[in-house]
């Protein structure tokens, strides 16, 4: 282990860096350096989050100051957002789609009231090798449902399938959640009790390209197409 790594594992130094960072007392150059270090050393990252969370309540009484209206316009312009079309030709269409949306909303509300509520329990936003979001996997606790939304469908050769995997937090083993269909962008699947237990113990999810029907050996053989951390939705919500 190199001296540099050892150095950034010393609790006193970690604490000192986190203090400086959160209080903002250092120079810009040092801030940038710590910002890089927190990506490399999770212990530094953890302590920065700790202090940010502890001290944030100091701003509860900071007075709100409404920014000027052109502030949002400037942000949109810098991000090159597509302006909303507003020509006379599209107004009727917008009205029509507005009515349709209202009808859909009404149907949705009636349906929502009719079915029992199911809370989102875990979510993983999985990113491809270019770090772009590719797939959202969400699970719902009451119904034990896995909902997959493919934001961009990777090219899958005819003799291949995409297979979803879950990596355990406790034993670090990777286990299959089965192959997933790419015929539609969104689909639901019922989880078995065993699969639900895997989700509850999951660290992250992986999507790999495997031969038709899934990996024959029960562990990933093909390339990783995307991956993402599995986040328990109730973690901080329980605290507030």
């Amino acid at each position, binding site marked *: 282990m190199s001296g540099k790594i050892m150095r950034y594992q010393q609790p006193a130094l970690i604490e000192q860096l986190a203090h400086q960072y959160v*209080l903002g*007392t250092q120079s810009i150059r040092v*801030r940038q350096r710590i910002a890089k270090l927190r990506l490399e050393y999770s212990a530094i990252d953890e302590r920065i989050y700790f202090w*940010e*969370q502890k001290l944030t309540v100091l701003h509860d009484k900071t007075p709100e100051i*409404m920014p000027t209206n052109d502030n949002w316009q400037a942000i949109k312009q810098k991000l090159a957002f597509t302006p909303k079309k507003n020509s006379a030709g599209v107004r009727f269409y917008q009205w029509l789609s507005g009515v349709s949306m209202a009808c859909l909303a009404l149907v949705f509300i009636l349906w929502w009231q009719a079915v029992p509520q199911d809370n989102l329990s875990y979510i993983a*936003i999985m990113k491809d090798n270019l770090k772009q979001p590719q797939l959202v996997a969400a699970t719902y606790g009451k119904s034990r449902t896995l909902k997959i939304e493919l934001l961009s469908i990777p090219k899958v050769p005819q003799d291949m399938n995409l297979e979803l995997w879950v990596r355990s937090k406790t034993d670090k083993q990777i286990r299959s959640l089965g192959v997933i269909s790419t015929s539609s962008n969104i689909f639901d699947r019922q989880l078995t009790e065993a699969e639900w237990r895997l989700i509850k113990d999951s660290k992250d999810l992986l999507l790999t390209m495997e031969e038709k029907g899934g990996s024959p050996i029960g562990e990933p053989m093909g390339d990783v197409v995307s991956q993402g*951390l599995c986040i328990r939705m109730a973690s*901080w919500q329980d605290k507030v």
Partner: protein
Amino acid sequence: MESKELARLLAKTALRDQQAFEHLYLLTAAKLNGIAFRILHNSDLAHEVLQEAFIQIWHNAIEYRIDKAEPFTWMASIVRYRSYDRVRCEKRRLENKQIQEQVESIEQIAATNQSTTPMCEIDQDLTDCLNQLEDVHRRGILMAYYFGFSRDEISEYLEKPINTIKSWLRRGLARLQQCLEK
């Protein structure tokens, strides 16, 4: 501000939902602008920092970790750090009168024996622990965090060597942590 709603909007922002991002802005911009203004003392600079921060939030929403931080804390930290950097960059020199006003407001915030002080309404644990710190430790922490004073500025104002200030900040936070963990 409802944390669950902000988390939902951040998740949708990560998926490049412009409407969700606008909604997120409408819910948080005034508070975040207030934080930037408190550090920068200039509306134009605060607006610039707010714009930069929201651009960063748009690009980095995918990095937000719901298990690590509440959504508003994550966003406010982006604004604070950008504000601190801007203060350092502009080499702000506050007039003595302004420093005096700010330090007085810190004294008011950290007052120990008035039940109506703003701090008492904020968070009892943090209030109690801050109030257990030595005055100079508490003052240094709040001058830095709340108003973006650098160690040099704190040293100049309190007329103490910079190493003393470093040591006060370090000891102050260490004691704050011990107290919060009790």
